[in-house]
């Protein structure tokens, strides 16, 4: 055991004192994740910065809103009317209709109908099931007391209300879009209510005779649309998105995790490839000549690679958290706070990556072969596993759709985004990653042990 740790310690030392290795291991994934994060918005305080063309996101809308007890207003219907094509006023009156204006507020000419493909559902469980099965990207579930708590027509202050957005982690960008839409609609309803009520109160006080005459036009509130549309409400007024299993997506979480795992696999590949380089420079033979069993040498290399990967991913996660905190202006634990589970996933992913490196380099003859084949496998796993784009679209393609499930990237990223969303269902991910790592290491070790050319 002592010699295993000595070899592992040497691996760690040589890796973390190599400037080139550090650039590749730490700076590159950090830079890539930040670039992607800024490109997609969600960093730097501007969440509208995305220029990714997203359209026809399948969304389920479950309106359980029972409306106002004192009026026939039903704010939940606003979601249905806006998101579900062909739906008119449903289940009560939404806000009195305003004529759609060409190019509403931002001038981009993109409508909700372009963005989403909504369906109306009645059962929240069915909606969640369709999200789980991949039929829907997200489901917006409006609670029964939604209108009542916002309090249309009352002078009570707006109460926080839970609005559930149940979304798949497999399509984080689309999920974020749906979440933003839901938040935007709800916020505008709340702000509009406040604005209308305050203005009407002022008008009633100023012109009581007008309102006493009975000629009040219910479409009057449309006059205020442009006034309140740019307003924003603190997210705390709508707590539903971060409660009850909803997805709190941050591009840095997904692409940070994906890039960290992607580059960790390169680190593992380089670590395993180091056996072949040591063979070329004869330090491996020198180790084999020493009174150290071959299995201890191999285990030492594996442990060294494994620990290198673990430290790499921990450093990257700390860096991503720091960046997110700077962007948010406060400590932002974007990967969640389930530390035990996060560490477990990191260990499992590192083991799987080290196993993959051992497997590849157990069968190749030269470091160059190992690099070419290893890099190809890792890039392929990255592509299929969601490093560069969400695998949500891929999983809908027959045959190809199962490929992500054979990648370390997919299971690692899935586990980490699950934990970031506040969920804890990662057991399958961890078991699969550990099993993958153990099997690949065993096969790679066997292949290396059966080689006769180690002395050449």
């Amino acid at each position, binding site marked *: 055991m002592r010699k295993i740790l000595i070899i592992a310690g040497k691996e760690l030392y040589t890796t973390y004192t190599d400037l080139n290795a550090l650039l590749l291991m730490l700076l590159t994934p950090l830079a890539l994740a930040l670039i992607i994060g800024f490109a997609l918005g969600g960093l730097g305080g501007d969440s509208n910065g995305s220029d990714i063309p997203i359209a026809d996101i399948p969304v389920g809308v479950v309106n359980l809103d029972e409306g106002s007890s004192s009026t026939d207003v039903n704010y939940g219907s606003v979601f249905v009317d806006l998101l579900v094509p062909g739906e008119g006023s449903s289940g009560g009156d939404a806000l009195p209709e305003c004529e759609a204006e060409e190019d509403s507020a931002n001038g981009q000419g993109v409508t909700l109908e372009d963005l989403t493909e909504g369906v109306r559902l009645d059962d929240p469980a069915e909606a969640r099931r369709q999200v789980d099965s991949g039929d829907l990207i997200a489901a917006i579930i409006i609670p029964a007391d939604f209108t009542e708590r916002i309090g249309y027509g009352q002078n009570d202050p707006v109460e926080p209300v839970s609005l559930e957005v149940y979304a798949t982690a497999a399509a984080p960008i689309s999920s974020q879009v749906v979440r933003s839409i839901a938040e935007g609609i709800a916020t505008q309803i709340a702000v509009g209510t406040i604005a209308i009520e305050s203005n009407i109160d002022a008008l009633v006080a100023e012109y009581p005779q007008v309102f006493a005459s009975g000629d009040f036009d219910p479409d009057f509130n449309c006059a205020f649309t442009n006034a309140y549309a740019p307003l924003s409400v603190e997210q705390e007024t709508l707590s539903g998105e971060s409660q009850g299993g909803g997805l709190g997506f941050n591009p840095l979480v997904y692409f940070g995790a994906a890039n960290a795992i992607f580059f960790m696999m390169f680190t593992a590949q380089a670590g395993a490839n180091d056996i072949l380089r040591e063979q070329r420079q004869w330090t491996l033979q020198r180790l084999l000549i*020493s*009174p150290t069993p071959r299995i201890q040498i191999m285990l030492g290399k594996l442990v060294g690679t494994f620990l290198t990967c673990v430290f790499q991913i921990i450093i990257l996660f700390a860096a991503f958290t720091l960046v997110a905190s700077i962007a948010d202006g406060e400590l932002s634990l974007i990967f969640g706070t389930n530390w035990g589970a996060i560490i477990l996933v990191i260990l499992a992913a590192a083991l799987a990556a080290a196993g993959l490196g051992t497997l590849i380099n157990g069968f190749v003859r030269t470091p160059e072969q190992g690099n070419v084949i290893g890099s190809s496998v890792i890039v392929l796993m990255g592509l299929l596993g969601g490093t560069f784009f969400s695998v949500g679209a891929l999983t809908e393609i027959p045959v190809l759709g199962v490929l992500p499930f054979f990648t370390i990237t997919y299971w690692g990223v899935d586990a980490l985004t699950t934990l970031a969303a506040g969920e804890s269902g990662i057991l399958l991910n961890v078991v699969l990653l550990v099993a993958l790592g153990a099997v690949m290491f065993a096969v790679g070790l066997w292949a290396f042990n059966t080689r*006769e050319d180690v002395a050449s």
Partner: protein
Amino acid sequence: MPVLQADSLVKVYARNGEQLRAVDGISFHVDEGEIFSLLGPNGAGKSTTIGMISGLIAPTEGTATIGGHSITAEPVHAKELMGVVPQEIALYPNLTARQNLAFFGRMYGMGGAGLDKRIDEVLEFIDLVDRQNDRIDTFSGGMKRRVNIGVGLLHKPKLVYMDEPTVGVDPQSRRRILDTVLRLRDEYKMAVLYTTHLMEESQEISDRVGIIDNGRLIAVGTVEALIQQVGEEDRLVIQVDGDEVPSSLVEMIKQREDVSDLRIEHREVEGSLTKGTQLIVLVRGGRRALPALLQLVDDAGVTVSSVEVREPDLEAVFLHLTGKALRD
């Protein structure tokens, strides 16, 4: 009791469907405090033999024991008794000399203050105390060689294998390495198994020499005993211009009573694009026979460019035993 005993070592490789016997039944022993050289041309099987003795290559047949421990049955015990200085610079280039010594020392079970003290001794021995904290990749070739040797000596082995340790070093470093080998025997009473294709090195430092060719050990003994095998014959090396030597000249030289053998080798002439030919004549009383032999060459119309008389040495022994020069 010998510190190393090799018995009938055989190594067969399968290459392209054919069986290649790289080592073919080699047996020898090395006594304590003895320098034993394996002398042979490149590809003769020296490194494969060392590989089997050091546990790096599994023998197809035969056994080797170090201090009574079989390298195949008790590899850990056997390896504890031996140090290896490979032909390659087997060091981590991005670690310092001291870090390399410390790492490999720990691989031999050393540690703590004992290891530090021993590293100091070895650094002193290889004369690199002042560069101990510099990375290996900043060292000259000779300095790397010295560290390479130092690693092999760190755990005070009873037997040190040195596989062509002077390959690619300058004359000054070569001299230093040869002196180091002699000190290992004389000061530290270590046994050294030294492989080389350079006759001069083998002749200078060895107590006994094993001559190896085509995977077989063709002669073993002290330098003096081996040279006696070729008697009093000198080698006359006559360098002539051109690629061809008239057959009549060859016949006339061979017919002389004092000539026992004649070899003709075609070699590139140093500093010239043309090829030359060497007539290597094994002859008794070389200096006395030289004028007559040169006259024969001249009579045949062949131009002599240089002449050298070499007294009996291990190269002559190799030539005598194999019919070819050691450098082939």
